[in-house]
């Protein structure tokens, strides 16, 4: 090992970053996008771009969907009411092994046609914590490992950074590229340090039962029992009963729940064993106005309407844990803070990317021929520029595919996902097989694709930027389009700078991986 403490920490920082940096980038990239998951959904599912409803909301208005669930012997059914981030009612139930979900216009009660896309809530968000590797929860464990690595990186980064205060605001864009990368790495690292640590820690905590089951199994039969106990869901594990009994009025039960809560209104209703003698109706209140992800669940008997359980008041440890989960899950509504999350998340992405690039810059001269170096070079390209390109490709495929697209037995949403992976694979291959000018080409591709996405949204939905900006309910779409345009401009200038570097290569020091 290295001779002194600081140097061993330096070594640990370098290699943890190189080994787990690509997973970290993917996690932070998808997490940053998930900050605006519902807004991206609105962009990807144009038929859900509805004006905010002024109707008083009624749970019984979606009773038809509940009856469908009863008819198909579903073991649960739920409905999520609209709010200012999601203008429609959403219902779900499981019929056999199939999940059925419906999107309902709250003003007309009409069931909306679905675009056939997973969108950001169905793809980016799960990717953020599972990497879409379901096999033996491999993805979740990799994300867990990368998150612990992130904490290690934060700690070691602070230890090895000698002049942490002096360099707090040091940014020298005109210096040689290595210095610039390190400045940018330090700037985003130090400025965003509280964000990196809190978000990583709270993310680990949310999946804590997966990562450390031993501590739960020492006192509970299984992690699920702890989950029910900790979230006031003790009503949940009921046995299937005899079918054929009616479900009481959801609105009357909802009014009872509101009265018990005092101020809050129910945001989601869950019916367990609908239409069976052991049926339960549970209400979850909205967390729009609070950080803590505490939904204070109230459950009733589904046939008699009798109160079954009201979540007990959480103790200080549970409260802390829910506050931290709430900080991570951002279910509260505050546009300013939401943008701050987005900007901080982008900062984390810059931090990880510049860390990678700095590692390569330092080794470029001496090791550029070694196979290990070339491998990392390709991985960096694919996991930084590549994932951005494939995300943009995902948006573009979403706008290009016809509504009922189905090829090779794949549904429309599966096609989108395949497209994402295919494009991502190509970006890696380019890094390994044709590394020359690969960065310049991929950054240019980002610029072009982002612009294409904006234009395609315009052509396929007629919602161009001027139109979306002038209607309040279309602002999420306007936000998405503006971010795409911003990305396109930034990538354009970056590509121009990179291509200038390529031309001056003989005269100046080589830039990373051009």
């Amino acid at each position, binding site marked *: *090992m290295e001779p002194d*403490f600081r140097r*061993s*920490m330096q*070594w*640990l920082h370098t290699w943890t970053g190189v080994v787990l940096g690509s997973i970290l980038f993917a996690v932070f990239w998808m997490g940053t996008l998930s900050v605006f998951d519902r807004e991206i959904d609105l962009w990807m599912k144009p038929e859900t771009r509805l004006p905010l409803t002024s109707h008083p909301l009624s749970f019984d208005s979606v009773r038809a969907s509940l009856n469908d669930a009863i008819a198909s012997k579903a073991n649960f059914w739920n409905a999520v009411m609209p709010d200012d981030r999601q203008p429609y009612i959403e219902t779900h139930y499981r019929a056999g092994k199939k999940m059925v979900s419906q999107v309902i216009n709250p003003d007309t009660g009409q069931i909306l046609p679905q675009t056939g896309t997973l969108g950001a809530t169905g793809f980016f968000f799960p990717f953020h914590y599972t990497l879409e590797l379901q096999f033996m929860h491999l993805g979740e464990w990799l994300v867990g*490992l990368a998150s*612990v690595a992130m*904490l*290690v990186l934060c*700690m*070691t980064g602070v230890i090895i950074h000698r002049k942490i205060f002096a360099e707090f605001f040091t940014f020298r864009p005109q210096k040689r590229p290595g210095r610039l990368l390190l400045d940018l790495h330090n700037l985003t690292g130090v400025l965003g340090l509280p964000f990196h640590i809190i978000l990583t*820690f709270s993310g*680990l*905590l949310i999946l*804590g*039962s997966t990562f*450390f089951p*031993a*501590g*739960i*199994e*020492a*006192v*509970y*039969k299984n992690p699920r029992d*702890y989950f029910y*106990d*900790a979230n006031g869901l003790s009503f949940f594990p009921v046995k299937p009963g005899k079918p054929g009994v009616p479900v009481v009025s959801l609105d009357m039960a909802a009014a009872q729940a509101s009265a018990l809560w005092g101020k809050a209104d129910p945001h989601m209703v869950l019916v367990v064993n609908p239409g069976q003698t052991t049926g339960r109706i549970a209400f979850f209140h909205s967390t729009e106005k609070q950080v803590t992800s505490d939904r204070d669940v109230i459950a009733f008997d589904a046939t008699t309407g009798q109160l079954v359980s009201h979540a007990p008041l*959480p*103790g*200080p*440890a*549970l409260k*802390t*844990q829910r506050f*931290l989960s709430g900080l991570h899950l951002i279910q509260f509504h505050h546009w300013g803070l939401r943008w701050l999350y987005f900007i901080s998340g982008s900062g984390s992405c810059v931090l990880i990317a510049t860390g990678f690039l700095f590692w390569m810059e330092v080794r470029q001269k001496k090791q550029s021929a070694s196979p290990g170096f070339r491998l990392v070079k390709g991985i960096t390209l694919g996991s930084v520029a590549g994932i951005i390109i494939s995300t943009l490709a995902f948006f573009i495929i979403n706008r290009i595919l016809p509504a009922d697209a189905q090829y090779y037995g794949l549904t429309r949403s599966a096609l989108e996902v395949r497209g994402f992976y295919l494009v991502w694979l190509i970006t890696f291959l380019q890094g390994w097989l044709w590394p020359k000018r690969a960065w310049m080409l991929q950054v240019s591709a980002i610029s072009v694709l982002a612009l294409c996405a904006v234009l395609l949204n315009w052509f396929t939905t007629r919602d161009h930027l001027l139109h979306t900006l002038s209607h309040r309910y279309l602002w999420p779409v306007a936000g998405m389009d503006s971010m795409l345009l911003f990305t396109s401009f930034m990538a354009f200038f970056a590509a121009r700078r990179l291509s200038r570097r390529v031309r001056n290569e003989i005269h100046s020091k080589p830039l990373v991986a051009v």
Partner: protein
Amino acid sequence: MKHPGIVIAGRTTLALFGGYFAASSVFVFSDRFLISLGLPRAEAVSFGMMCVFITYLFFILWVFAVRNLWLPFFVFFVLINTAHRLSLHHGHGG
């Protein structure tokens, strides 16, 4: 044991796996201790959950910071062994 590759692999294994099981063991001890003090189960587990990641992080940094690996190895061994005996004795919760 002098080849740098083997040393690094050993250190990483000890940090990742030894540290993981040792932190897990600390989690089990803290559960039992807090419950014996009269804390509700959900409270004890939630508190332990918040501490276990910090413990794991500390163990990893420790393994990579020291020159000699015997002390962390010994501590991890004792922690894991004790937790294992404890679970044999008390069995799983239910």
